[in-house]
Every structure is written in C-alpha cells, then in structure tokens.
C-alpha cells in the first residue's frame, strides 16, 4: 500500500518518446499527460470513466487515461492524439472527420479519433453497428454522433480504396 503523498519515478514512452518522471503516486495518468508532459490534446470530461474524452492507446489497448494512476503506466507505451500523425499532417481518420463535419466544439474529438483509429486498425471494414459499438464509451454532446459515424465509415472506405 502506497501512501497518498508518496512520490514515485516512472518511465513511459509517449508517442515514441521516452519520458522519465517523478510523479505523486495518486496522480491520474490523464493529469500526468496534461500537466506534467504538457500534452493538452487529451481531455477530461468526467471523473468516472464515462465520457471517453481522455481516451488513449496504451500497449495496444484502447484505454481511458482517467481510470489509471500514472504509476500504473510505468513501462508502458502510450499513444495520444498528438502522436497519431506526427508530421503535422492529418491521418485518414482525421481527414474524414474534417470532411464529414464530424466535430463541432472539438472537445470529445481527440478521444473519438483515438477510438476510431483503434477500431480501424483491428477492423478495417466495420458495419455501422460495429462503429457505434466502438464509440459507445465516448460521449459527444454536439453532433448527435451522426457525422461521427459517417466520418469513421468514410475513413474505412478511404483506407480500403
């Protein structure tokens, strides 16, 4: 059992770059990414793992980074929104969100782009139902999901072409 105020050293790889950092044992991974590494693209919309704004990919698994303490990510490889298209370009998923008006305020968008990216890596040709299931853990209050579903379907079609 680690005390609340304890400090730990962790080493994580974020978007291919290794970071060694000292963190409070109780710090949430999402706060570590945002506050310590200054990667502000991963967002926070709730405190209960319900909304998906903080979704990242950890060791190949889609994960809500508010549901993990930073020390639990010690040794992990983390992929965030800042890393999906490292050269400043947009990935086909991001392009599709742009073309299909799949975002409005943009707050849920990084989490949804991560969820969509993860889905298409495992299932390049999803049905509408599979798309909806894949993003059921990501809340969007602006779009009614219509254009998000279209964006992901369109990205799949584009990658297949």
């Amino acid at each position, binding site marked *: 059992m680690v005390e*609340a105020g304890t400090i730990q050293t962790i080493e994580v790889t974020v978007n291919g770059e290794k970071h060694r950092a000292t963190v*409070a044992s*109780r*710090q949430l991974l999402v*706060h570590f990414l*945002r*506050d310590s590494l200054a*990667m*502000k*693209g*991963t*967002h*926070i*919309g*709730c*405190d*209960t793992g*319900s*909304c998906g*704004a903080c979704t990242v990919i950890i060791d190949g698994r889609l994960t809500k980074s508010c549901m993990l303490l930073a020390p639990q990510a010690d040794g992990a490889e983390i992929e*965030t*929104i*800042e890393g999906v*298209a490292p050269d*400043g370009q*947009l990935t086909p998923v*991001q392009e599709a*969100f*742009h*073309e299909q*008006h799949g*975002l*409005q*305020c*943009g*707050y*849920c*968008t*990084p989490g949804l*782009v991560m969820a969509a990216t993860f889905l298409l890596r495992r299932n390049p040709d999803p049905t*509408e139902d599979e*798309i*909806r*299931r894949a*993003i*059921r*853990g*990501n*809340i*969007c*209050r*602006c*779009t*009614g*999901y*219509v*254009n*998000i*579903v279209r964006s992901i379907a369109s990205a799949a079609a584009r990658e297949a072409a």
Partner: protein
Amino acid sequence: MTTTPAETQIEIGRYVGQNVPRVEDRRLLQGQGEFADDVWMHRQGYAHFVRSPHGHARIVSVNPRRALELDGVYAVLTGEEAKEMCQVPFFQIAPEPAGRIEEYPLAVDKARYHGDAVAVVLAETRELARDAAGLVEVDYEPLPAVVDTVAAADSGAPLLHEQVGTNVAWHGVYDWGDIDWALENADHVVEIDRLHFHRFSSTPLECNGAVVNWDPGTDVVTVTSNNQMPMFASMVIGPTLGVASNRLLFSSQDIGGAFGIKIGSYPQIAALALLSRKAGRPVKWTEYRTDHMLSAGHGNERVFLDTKVAVMKDGTILGFKTRAFDDAGGYLHYEPLGAVIWSQVCCGCYRFKHIQVDYTETLTNKCPTVPNRGYSRLQHLWAIERVIDLVAHELGFDPVELRKRNYVQPDEYPYETPNGCVYDSGDLPRSLDIALELIHADRWRERQRELGQGSGKRIGIGIGSTLDSGTNNFGQARIINPDLPFSGNGEAAYVKLDLYGEVNVNLGTTPQGQSHETTAAQVVADVLGVTHEMVHVTAGFDQRQNTYVAFSGTYASQFAVTGLAAAQGAAEKLRREIVELAAFALQADAGEIDLADGTCYVRGDRDRAIPFIGVANMVYSNNAVLPMEMRDRYSLNCRHVYVPPFQVPDSETKRGNLTLTYASQIHACVVEIDEETGEVAILDYAAVDDCGRRINPKIVEGQVHGATALGLGAALYEAFEYDEDGQLQQASFYDYHAITALDAPEIKTGEIESPSPFTPNGAKGMGEGGGAPLHAICSAIQDALGDRDAIVSDSHNPWERVWRLVHSGERGEPRGVSVISRSGGEPAP
C-alpha cells in the same frame, strides 16, 4: 407591431451558401485547441470549492484550520469573508420582493441547495486542493427542504430567502385575446390536469473552468474562462467585486460545448477573483463533473396545471389557458427572464388567438437553473404539442390533419401573434409533409395496423412541431421588471486590412462549436472579393483586442443574424475605404472600381489594378503619397455594430416584438414500445429545418443533428431528480445517462429555405432547435398507446414510466384529461 424589412439583401456569393470546410477543424483534430483547462499561469494555485451536502441548511460555522495546516495550501476563502470583500450583492433582475435576494459569490448564513458553495480552497496541486477542501470543517444545521415548485409557492413552505418573504420569484398573468369567451363558445373544452416538463441539462462535455488573476500591481482582473456570455458576467460581478469594467478582462479561445449552461459560471468566477486577491496568486479552477452536475446549472423544470383548450368541431383550436409553475432552484441566475422568454412563442406554430398563462416562478432547494438549449421556449412548446396530441386523442382527430388545420399558413407571413411577435417566414405544412415522407409514415401506419394485439410490441408515429426563435429583443426583460434599463440587441465586429493587405476579422462572440471562424470568413470574403483562405478570423474572444457590446457572446440562436451582420457591415465599411483608396491610386472614379481576388481593378481595364498590399501600403507605411485631406480619413480598421430594428415592448399588456427571427423545426419519428419492459426503440427519425438562408448548409445540418440528439437524450434517458430532502440523485455520468452512439438513431434531415425578410442576409438564427425531439417522442408514445386511456403527461419517458403507461388501464388511475362538449359538439368520427 411590425418589424421593418431589412434594406439590403446580399446575394449568395462565391462562399455564402456553400459547404466551406471548417477552418477550426485542423487544430481541434490535432489536439491543439486551447480550452479552459489548457491555460496555465506562473505561480498559479488550484482552486476547489467546498460544497453543501444538504439541500437546505443553516451554516453555523466554517473552520478552515485543518485545511490550512496542510503543506502547500495557500488560502481558504469562506462565504463570510467573501461577503466582506464585496461592495454589493449580485445584481438581481427580479423586481420586488425577489429583488431583495442577497447573493454573494459564496453562500453566507445558509446553503440553499445540495452543492451550494460555502468556501473555496487554493493549493499547490489539484489533488491537494481537493483534499484540503475535505478538511474544511463546516457545521451545518439542516433545515426542511422544498423541492416541488407548486408546493414552494404555498405560504407555509420553508423559505429560501427570508428577507423576500415568499419563494415566489415572479408572478404575472399573460392574457391575450379573450380566453373566457373562447372557452364559452367552443364546441369542446379539453381539460388537462397536469403536464410536467422535467429537469435536465445539455451537460457540455467540457466542465466550467477559469484562470483568474487579480493582479496585485495593477488591480486589473483577468478572467480566462469558458464563460459564454462574458459581458453579462462582467456586468453582474464587476459591481460586486468593485472592479470597473475596463479592468475586468475576459477572454477565451476554444469552448468545449456550452448550450447556455456556461452563462451560469459567473458566481464561481467572482469567488475565484476574491480568492486570487486574498492569496496574491493566479487561481486555476477546473470543475469536476460531479461539481458540474450539482452546481453548474440545470434547465428549467415546469408544471402546467388545469390547462383548458377551446376546440371547434372542425378541429380549429381557438386557444388555451393554463397555470404554469417554473422551478428556478435556489438562486436566480439569469432568472426570472425565463418567465417572459417563453412568450416569444406563446402560440407555438399555431394560429391560436386566445391565450392566458398564469405564470409563477418559484425558488426551490435545487441547483439554480440557467439557460439550457431551447431556454424557456421548449417547455412551453412541449406543452403546446401535448395539447395538440391530447386534443387529437380525446376528440378523435388525426394528429397530422389537426396540426395542418391550425398551423400558421404559408401565405400568412409576416404573421403577428396575439402578443405582438412577428413570425417572419416559413412553410410549416410543407415541412411536415417532408418529415412524414422521410420516415415513410404511411408504411408505418399500415405496419401499426397489421401488428395488432398480442405481438407484445406497439408502434407509434410522432410529430414535434417547434420554433427556434432567435435574436432576442432584450426589452422583454421590462415585462418582468419595468425598471430594467435593457432593450434591443446587437453584436460587434472588426474587419481590418493588415500591413501586407491581409484581411483580419474579430468578433464579439464566444463560439463553442458553431463555426464562427468559418462562416464569418465566408461572409467577409464575399464582400471584399477575396478567397476564404485570405480571411483570418481571430479564434475566440479577448476583451483586450476584440470589439464587443453588452450583448456579446454566443447564446440564443442569433449568430447568423447578429454576428454575421456585424461582420458584413464592417467588411462593407472596409470595402468602401479600399475602393476609395484604389480610385485615388488608379486615377479613376470610385464607382468604376471592382474587387476580385484581393485586387482592385478599374472596370473593363484589367491592366489598371492595385492589389490590397498596395492599398495597405498607402495607409500604413507610405502615407506621404496621399493628399493631406485623405490622410486622416482612412484607417483600414473598420468596426460595425449590427442593431436589429426593435422597439421597447409594452410591459402592461406584455406585448411587443420579442424576437427578430423564427426558424422552424418539424420532426417526425417512429417508435416501437416493448410492452413487457417499456423500452422505447426509435425505428426512424427525421428533422426538417427551415432557418431561412443557410450560410453553410453542412454546419446547419450539424446543429440540427446535435439539438436532436440532446432532445432525444432528455426525452428518454436524461433527468435531474431530487429526493424530498433535496439530494440530487444523478450527480455523475453513471446516474445521468447522457445519450450515447448506441442510443442515438440515424437522423434523417430535410430542409426548406424561407429567407427572413427582416435580416440583412436572409438568415435566421438557429441551433437551439426548440426541443422538437421531446415533443415528437411524447407524441409517438401517445400514438403507440392507441385508444388506451393513458396520456403522456411527462416530458421524460424512461422504460418504467412507459411500462406504466402501457399497463395503466389495468390499475384504473385517474386519466388526467377530460372533455366537455357542448350541443352540436360531437366528437369527430
């Protein structure tokens, strides 16, 4: 009262009316937006509020000692201390006696709802601030709570604000036409005992947040926040803090959804300013979701009692009367403006001539309400749609035909309502036909008949007819309180030509996904004859560089009118300057100058041309070439304030032109109810929008989708409910089921464009959507109940409530509706 038609109408240009891709997208898709929690300041501390666990309690004492003992805790501010630092309580919109409410940035003496903030802590880290808040010892003496809006109005109810002497925040009778005559002369009177519109919120995905710094050197207070109506916030908190508006500076860049809810963050911002002043440090605050659910503001709950509807035997509805009780929660934040705002749409989509609403707004031990998408109109519009469906149900009319018979007809625009509002344009019957075609209503009607009894399923077809009134006349506030110095509306914009001939625009608005950067660039590009990419619209709002008026912000379905008219007006001023300077340079007449692709040409002679960079050069860095008399005439920095043509409404008769535009939304849907579980599945859904000329159709469609999903969520899943002690039952996304991608249907859209004759660009404000899904889902459930006695009388219909409706006849509850028919007034066949 009429509204003057706008003098000029710009034609659809190269960009206006096109699906120009959004310029906001790139940064947001790359995670490079700047939201409230993305802002840091050197030396900042993190704030966390201490909130009341009680619905109603006397605050006996607040002791911060244990919190302050923790290493890294900078300061604690209590309600008493905050009051001492304030010049005056927050300004109240309400007249006497509710105008006597004394609200300060933190609760003093009493906590009036579960989540009311009684103190705020500043510490080195987020976690520490939260821990320390838990160590602030508050001694409460619990008091009886009142959570029912009708009971709150009773003289014996526990009082929230003793000095007011009542929980009634506002009461008035709206009476237009002659409802008593109508009820006496109607063939049928349909009486509905009680309709209940429930509490919910659009719960923006980004919670409230701010970095507030009371600079000890200059006494300038900067507020970098996601408040969506910063000038209103400034006008409320400035006098309380004793800070002049030229030293109280708001800014924001990206806002993660707001929907009206983020109008309500000003009390917290005021508390943070005081905390910053006390601690001598910048204060950073990011609300946790639970804090948001408890205290950021909910939409208005409303009860309609003893509704009586006057109906003729051919289905013509003469009008109705009702007693409305609106629940504003523990304090009046923006209220009681809701007590008049509904009257923008007093007759809904219909030609009712006789309307009487006895309206009471009460204070209860619940979270204060704030404007929530469709603010105050959707409650009333929902009640009207229930009236239509219940009249159809009770008297045997077809709900489609009954609507069409009573709709305002396309040849009647501009149509003046009984309270003097002017509906600008539209075609409601055609919109309904399109919606019904989109869902293949005829086929579903057949399927409904085939299904028959014993299948365990019921199918229902529903309609939601609604209006999205936009561009308020703030003079309607005087119907609430004649002493208020508010009227009209407006928005400001700057358009300038920059040093090398680039075009820059900045706006008074605070967009939260409504694509202002994209659409303002479309309008300005068309006026100046440049490409869309050549126009840079500053992202977000910053009081230090943007222009504004007191109405500035983003709320109430008005940007397409007010914001874009301001941008258009400023661009036209700049165009005149550019043309005159070019005429001088080219030795031509100003009337001969054309602008295209960022260059000024003499008409018919493309060789005589000067690019914008040349024009900019003459003013900024080469002005000795200009004749003396021209030098101070041109700045290439042009400001325009768009002011709509309003007059002050009559506070006695409660009549006036309260809104400039009326977009319409006609929705139709098909639902299937599982009789065993009460589950409602949406089988088909269509929304038909008419918002006049669409500047960017794809963006309009996106707004329609979003408003529809939020309405569906509210209709079927989302509710804020309090127990009798005032405990909120849904304080997280576990309990408050925000609609997900699995719940939401594919939404079909259709549109017609009836340009508004009253706006400079023919557009109508839109985006709020008027709550049509709530109307449509209730209508469909009613339809699925068929000839059963049960009536849909609540706007929230989760499985359990629907199950009860389906099985109600088995237990013989009172129906809640009755019909009195006079001689000759036989029900329709």
